[in-house]
C-alpha cells in the first residue's frame, strides 16, 4: 500500500460525505414536497396519470402500487427484449432474446440489480437499451428511494395511518433528483470523452495500420444513471473498465462518487425527516466505517499482490491482473468495493482476477445485506432493519422494552425483519449450494476448487442482494442460472421490501414515545459500534462456513502454492 493510495480513498470519502449532507437535506425537502421548481411538469404527470397527490396511502396500498408498477414494467421489458428484432432502432438487426434470458434480464432491471447474463454489444438493440434498460434504471432506482421515504415517514410522528403516496414519491424522486443529477453527470462525462450518439460504431485505424470497428452509442446518460441509481448495467460488456464508459482517472473518481452519493445522503435525509440529525449521522457512520474497512482491506490485499507472481518475479508491487493500467490498484479496488457496497455491481476491473481476500471483501459486503451504503433506498431500509434488530437485542440491556426513535419494537416487527434476513440467506446459500451439486451449475464454472465455489457463491449473493456485479468467469446464460438467479433477484428485492413496508406501516401506527434519560441511545459511537457488530453477526456470520470453503480456503492455499 502507498500513502497515495490511502489518500485516494480518503479523498473519495471526503468528497462523498461532504456532498451527502447538503444532498440529504435536499432529498428531505423532496420527500416533504418542498421542492417545486418543476411543479407544472410534476402536476402535469399527476393529471395525466390520474393521481390524487393529496391522498396518502397505507402501507398495503403503497406496496401494491410499487408491486403493480414493477410487474407492468417487468412485463413490458420482457416483451421488448423478446421482440426487439421487430422493434425500431435496431440497426445491427439483433435477434430477440431467448425466453429465459429475457426473463433473467427483465427481472434484473426491474429489481435494480442489473445482472447481465447477456452481452450488451451483441444481444441487445440500442432501442431496447435506451427505452428498456435505461428507463428501468430510473424507475427501479426511484422505486427504491420511494420505499425508503415511506420507511422514514414511519418514524416522523406517532399514530400515523399512512406512509405517503407512492406515485408522488416516484415522480418527485425522478423529476427532482435522478433526472437532473444524471443530466449534469452525463454532460460532464461527455466532456470527459464518453460517447452519447445515435451512431452504432466507428472505424478506426490502429497504430499498426490495421482497421478496427469500435461499438459506440448513447453511453453517457446510461453511465450516469448506472452509477447514480446504483444500477450497474454497463453500455459495454467491459462495464466501467471500458475506455468509452470510463475514459480516465478523473471519470473513475467521479463515477465512484456518483454511485456512493445518494446512498450516503439518505441517512442524512432521515435525520432531517425525524428532526434529529444525529440519528442520521449514526447510520451514515456505521455504513461508512464498514465501507472504509472494505476499501482499505481490498486495497491492501491487492497491493500485497499474489505471492506466486512475486516469487516468480513477474511483478514486484501488487496484483495487476484484471486491472486497468489507467486507474491503478487503489482506484480499481475502491471502485469495485464501492460498487459492491452499494449494490451497483459496476466494475472497472475484474474481481475474478483479484487475490482471494481482495475478492472476498466485495462478496462479503454483498452478503452483509447491501447496507454500506447499499442500493439507493434499499440500502437505507435494510440498515433500518439492522438498527431495529440491534435495538431489540441490546436495547433490553438498559432495562426497557426496545424502542427505536420512540417506536416500540415488538413481535410483529421482529417477525418481519427476521423474514427478510431469512429470505436473503435462503436464496444465497441454497441457490449456490444447489448449483454447485448439479452438473449444469458446475459446467458454468470456469475454475475448479474454492475459486469455482467463490464464482457461484458470488453470483447468488450478487443476484439476491440485487447487486448485479459478476465475479466474471461464470457462464451465466444457462437455464439453471437464468431462471434461478432471476427468481433470486425478484425475491431478494420484493420479498424483502414488502415485509419492510409492513414494518413501516406497523411502526407508523404506533405512538411516538418521548425520549428520556432512560431511553436506549441510538446515536454516538457506542450505538455505531453496536450496529456494526449486529450487521456483521446477524447479517454476515451465517455465510462464514460457505465463505471459508471459497475465498478463505483459496487464500491459504495460494500461500502454499496451490492455485485454481
Amino acid at each position, binding site marked *: 500500500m502507498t500513502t497515495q493510495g490511502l489518500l485516494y480513498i480518503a479523498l473519495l470519502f471526503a468528497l462523498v460525505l461532504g456532498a451527502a449532507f447538503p444532498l440529504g437535506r435536499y432529498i428531505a425537502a423532496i420527500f416533504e414536497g418542498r421542492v417545486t421548481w418543476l411543479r407544472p411538469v410534476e402536476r402535469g404527470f399527476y393529471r395525466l396519470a390520474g393521481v390524487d397527490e393529496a391522498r396518502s396511502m397505507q402501507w398495503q396500498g403503497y406496496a401494491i402500487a410499487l408491486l403493480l408498477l414493477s410487474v407492468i414494467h417487468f412485463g413490458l421489458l420482457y416483451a421488448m427484449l423478446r421482440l426487439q428484432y421487430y422493434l425500431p432502432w435496431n440497426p445491427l438487426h439483433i435477434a430477440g432474446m431467448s425466453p429465459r434470458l429475457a426473463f433473467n434480464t427483465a427481472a434484473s432491471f426491474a429489481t435494480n440489480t442489473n445482472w447481465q447474463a447477456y452481452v450488451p454489444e451483441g444481444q441487445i438493440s440500442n432501442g431496447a437499451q435506451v427505452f428498456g434498460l435505461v428507463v428501468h434504471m430510473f424507475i427501479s432506482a426511484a422505486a427504491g428511494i420511494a420505499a425508503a421515504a415511506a420507511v422514514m415517514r414511519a418514524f416522523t410522528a406517532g399514530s400515523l395511518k399512512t406512509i405517503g403516496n407512492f406515485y408522488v414519491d416516484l415522480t418527485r424522486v425522478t423529476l427532482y433528483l435522478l433526472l437532473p443529477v444524471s443530466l449534469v453527470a452525463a454532460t460532464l462525462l461527455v466532456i470527459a470523452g464518453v460517447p452519447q450518439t445515435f451512431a452504432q460504431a466507428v472505424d478506426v485505424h490502429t497504430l499498426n495500420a490495421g482497421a478496427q470497428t469500435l461499438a459506440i452509442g448513447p453511453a453517457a446518460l446510461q453511465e450516469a444513471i448506472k452509477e447514480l441509481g446504483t444500477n450497474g448495467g454497463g453500455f459495454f460488456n467491459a462495464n466501467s473498465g471500458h475506455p468509452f464508459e470510463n475514459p480516465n482517472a478523473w471519470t473513475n473518481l467521479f463515477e465512484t462518487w456518483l454511485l456512493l452519493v445518494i446512498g450516503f445522503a439518505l441517512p442524512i435525509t432521515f435525520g432531517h425527516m425525524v428532526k434529529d440529525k444525529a440519528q442520521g449521522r449514526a447510520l451514515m457512520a456505521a455504513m461508512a466505517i464498514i465501507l472504509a474497512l472494505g476499501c482499505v482491506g481490498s486495497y491492501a490485499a491487492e497491493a500485497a499482490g499474489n505471492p506466486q507472481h512475486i516469487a516468480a518475479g513477474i511483478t514486484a508491487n501488487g496484483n495487476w491482473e484484471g486491472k486497468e493500467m489507467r486507474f491503478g490498484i487503489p482506484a480499481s479496488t475502491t471502485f469495485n468495493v464501492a460498487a459492491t457496497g452499494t449494490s451497483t455491481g459496476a466494475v472497472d476491473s475484474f474481481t475474478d482476477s483479484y487475490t482471494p481476500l481482495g475478492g472476498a471483501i466485495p462478496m462479503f459486503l454483498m452478503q452483509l445485506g447491501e447496507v454500506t451504503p447499499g442500493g439507493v433506498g434499499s440500502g437505507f431500509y435494510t440498515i433500518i432493519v439492522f438498527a431495529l434488530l440491534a435495538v431489540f437485542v441490546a436495547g433490553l440491556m438498559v432495562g426497557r422494552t426496545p424502542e427505536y426513535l420512540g417506536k416500540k419494537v415488538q413481535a410483529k416487527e421482529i417477525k418481519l425483519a427476521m423474514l427478510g434476513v431469512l429470505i436473503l440467506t*435462503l436464496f444465497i446459500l441454497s441457490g449456490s449450494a444447489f448449483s454447485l451439486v448439479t452438473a449444469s451449475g458446475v459446467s458454468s464454472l470456469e475454475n475448479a476448487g474454492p475459486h469455482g465455489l467463490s464464482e457461484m457463491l458470488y453470483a447468488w449473493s450478487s443476484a439476491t442482494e440485487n447487486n448485479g456485479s459478476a465475479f466474471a468467469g461464470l457462464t451465466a446464460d444457462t437455464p439453471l442460472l437464468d431462471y434461478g438467479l432471476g427468481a433470486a433477484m425478484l425475491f431478494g428485492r420484493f420479498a424483502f421490501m414488502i415485509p419492510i413496508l409492513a414494518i413501516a406501516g406497523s411502526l407508523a401506527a404506533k405512538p411516538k414515545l418521548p425520549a428520556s434519560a432512560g431511553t436506549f441511545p441510538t446515536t454516538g459511537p457506542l450505538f455505531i459500534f453496536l450496529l456494526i457488530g449486529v450487521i456483521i453477526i446477524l447479517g454476515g456470520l451465517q455465510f462464514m462456513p460457505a465463505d471459508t470453503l471459497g475465498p478463505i480456503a483459496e487464500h491459504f492455499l495460494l500461500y502454499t502454492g496451490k492455485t485454481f
Partner: protein
Amino acid sequence: MASADTISLFDARIIRRAAVDSVFKLNPITLARNPVIFVTEIVAALVTATGIEAVVTHHPAGFPITIAAWLWLTVIFATFAEAVAEGRGRARAESLRRARSDTMAKVMIDQRDRALYKPTAASDLRRGDIVLVETGDLVPSDGEIIEGIASVNESAVTGESAPVVREAGGDRSAVTGGTQVVSDWLVVRITADAGSTFLDRMIALVEGAERRKTPNEIALNILLAGLTIVFLVAVVTLVGFGQYSGTRFSIPVLAALLVCLIPTTIGGLLSAIGIAGMDRLVRFNVVATSGRAVEAAGDVDALLLDKTGTITFGNRMASGFYPVPGVNERDLAEACAYASLGDDTPEGRSILALARDRYQLAPERPADATIIPFSANTRMSGVDFAGKSYRKGAVDSVLASLSGTADATFVDSIARIARAGSTPLAVSANGRLLGAIELKDIVKPGIKDRFAALRAMGIRTVMVTGDNRITAAAIAAEAGVDDYIAEATPQNKLDYIRKIQSEGRLVAMCGDGTNDAPALAQADVGVAMQTGTQAAREAGNMVDLDSDPTKLIEIVEIGKQLLITRGALTTFSIANDISKYFAILPAIFVGTYPQLAALNVMHLRTPESAILSAVIFNALIIVALVPLALRGVKFRAIGAAALLKRNLLVYGVGGIIAPFAGIKLIDVGLSLFHVFS
C-alpha cells in the same frame, strides 16, 4: 411467605426435584414451545441414532455417542434451568397452599340472624354467597366485609403475624381467603369463585404454572426461532458446498455446528429468567397478576407516589420553637412540653422528643393535672395543674382564646413556617402567648438521592398529596420530585395519569381505597395495597402484601432487572458464535484443505477435540449462567447510556472473548484425559 426469603439459590431439595422434572420436560410436545431447545433435541436424537447405527455396524462410535451425550445434556441443562426456577416458586406456593386447607364456610341463610347458617365446603362457595366468619375461623374465600369489625391474622398471605383490623365500609373492607379472624366476627360477601381466589392466583403465579409469555418474550422467541432457521439453512447448505469441495460431513459434525451456532444459551434460560423475575417480586411480597405487568414496570416513565408514608414519614414532627420577644426559647420549649403531656398523638410525642433533645426537658405528668383533650370546636389541647394552664393549638384558635393581639415577630414566624410547607401551632401559658412550634413533614432521609437516581434512569417522580399548593410545593422542592399533585382527588389523579399517558409515557402508581380504583386501572402499573379494598385490588395489576407504598420504586427496578437480564444473556449468547466458528470451521474443513489449520487460532489439539470442546462449552455455559438468570443482572441507576456501555462491554465484548478461553480450557482438559487427542 416471610420464610420464603431464606430459600437459597440452590436448595438441595429444589435441585433434586428439578433434576427429575428436567427429564420429564424433555417431552417434545411441551418442548416445542421453545424452538431453539426443541431443534437441539431433534438434533440430539438424530445424532444418537447415528451413534447407534455406528455401534450396530461396528464402525467407530465413540465420537457420535459423545457428541450425542453432550447434546442431550444441553437440552437437559435448559430444562433443568426452567425446573429450578419453577422449583423455587413451588416452594413458596407450598407455604401458601397450606393456608388453603379445606375450611368449612358458614353460609348465612338470613343475613340478619347470625345464629342461622349452613356449613358448606369452601370449595363449593360461589361468588355472591354471604358467609359468617367468627373468632378462630379461617376466612373461606376472598370477599368484601358487609358487616362487622374484626382483627384478622393475615400471616398466611403476607407473612406479617400482627393482626390487622378489617371492617365494613371504608378502605379496609377486603378479606383474603386463608386468613384467620382472631377476634370478633365478620359477615362477608364472597367475591371470587372457588379456584380463582387471590390465594389460588398467587399459587399459580409463583409456581409458574399459568405462566403466559410476555409480549417481549414472544418477540424474543421469534428472533431466536428466526436465527435458528437461518443457521439451519447455513448448516444444511454446507452439505452441498462440502460435496462440491470433496468433503463429506458426518451428521454429528453438522449437528455440533448447528447447535453451537443457534442461540441455545438464551433459548435455554429465557423462561427461567421470566419465572425468576416473578419470583423476585414475590420474595419482595409483591404479587403481579401477569408477567406483562412486570415488564411494563421496567418501562415506566413516571411514578405517582403518595406523599405521606412514601416521601415523608407518615406524621408531622416538631422541628423548631419560635418564641415571642421577651420569652426565651427554653421557657417556650418547657411550656410546649407541658402542653403536650396529655397528647398521645405522634405529633405530641414529637414535641416532647424535641424538647428533650434540645433542652433535656422531660417533665413528669403532675398528679393533679387535668388533661384538656383536643376537640374540633376548640382546636386546642393542653393541661391544667397547680393553677397553671398550658395550651397549644391552631394559631387562630389560640389567639382567639387570649386577650390582645399578636406582635409582629410572631406573625412573621407563622408566615415563614407556612411558607416552608410546615404547620405552625401557637402555644400559651396562663393566658399569655409564648410563641409557636413548627410541625414539619419530615422528608425521609435518602429519598432525594433515590429520586435523583430515578431521574437518571429517565423516570419522573410525581408526589400526590391532599395538602394545599404551598405546602405541597415546599415539600416537593425539599424531596426533589419532578412534579406534584396538590389537593389530590381521585378525579384529578386520573386526569393527571391520562395527561402523561397521552404524551406516550407509562405511569405507575399505588393506591388502596375504592376511590383509587379508577386511577389504578388507568395506570400502566397499578400496585394495590393488600390492606386496601377489593375494588382497588382488582383494579391494580400488582398487589403489595406488605402495603408499603415505597415499594413502587423497587418494583420498577425489578422490572428493569428482568429486562436487562434477558438482554444481557441474549447479547452474550449471540456474541458467542464468533469463537465457535473459529473452533469448529477449521476442524471440519481441515481434512479437505489442511491449510485452513491456520484459522485454528486456539490451537485446539484435534478436530474431534475442537468440535467436542465447543459443544461442551455450549452446554456448560447454560448451567454456569443459571445463577445469573435466577438472581438477575444487577441493576444500576446510572442512566441508559452508561448502563448500555457497561453491559455491552461485559456481555457483548465478554461474550465474544469468554468462549475462546472456555473452549481452549476444555480442550486442554480433554487432552489431559486423552479424550480425542
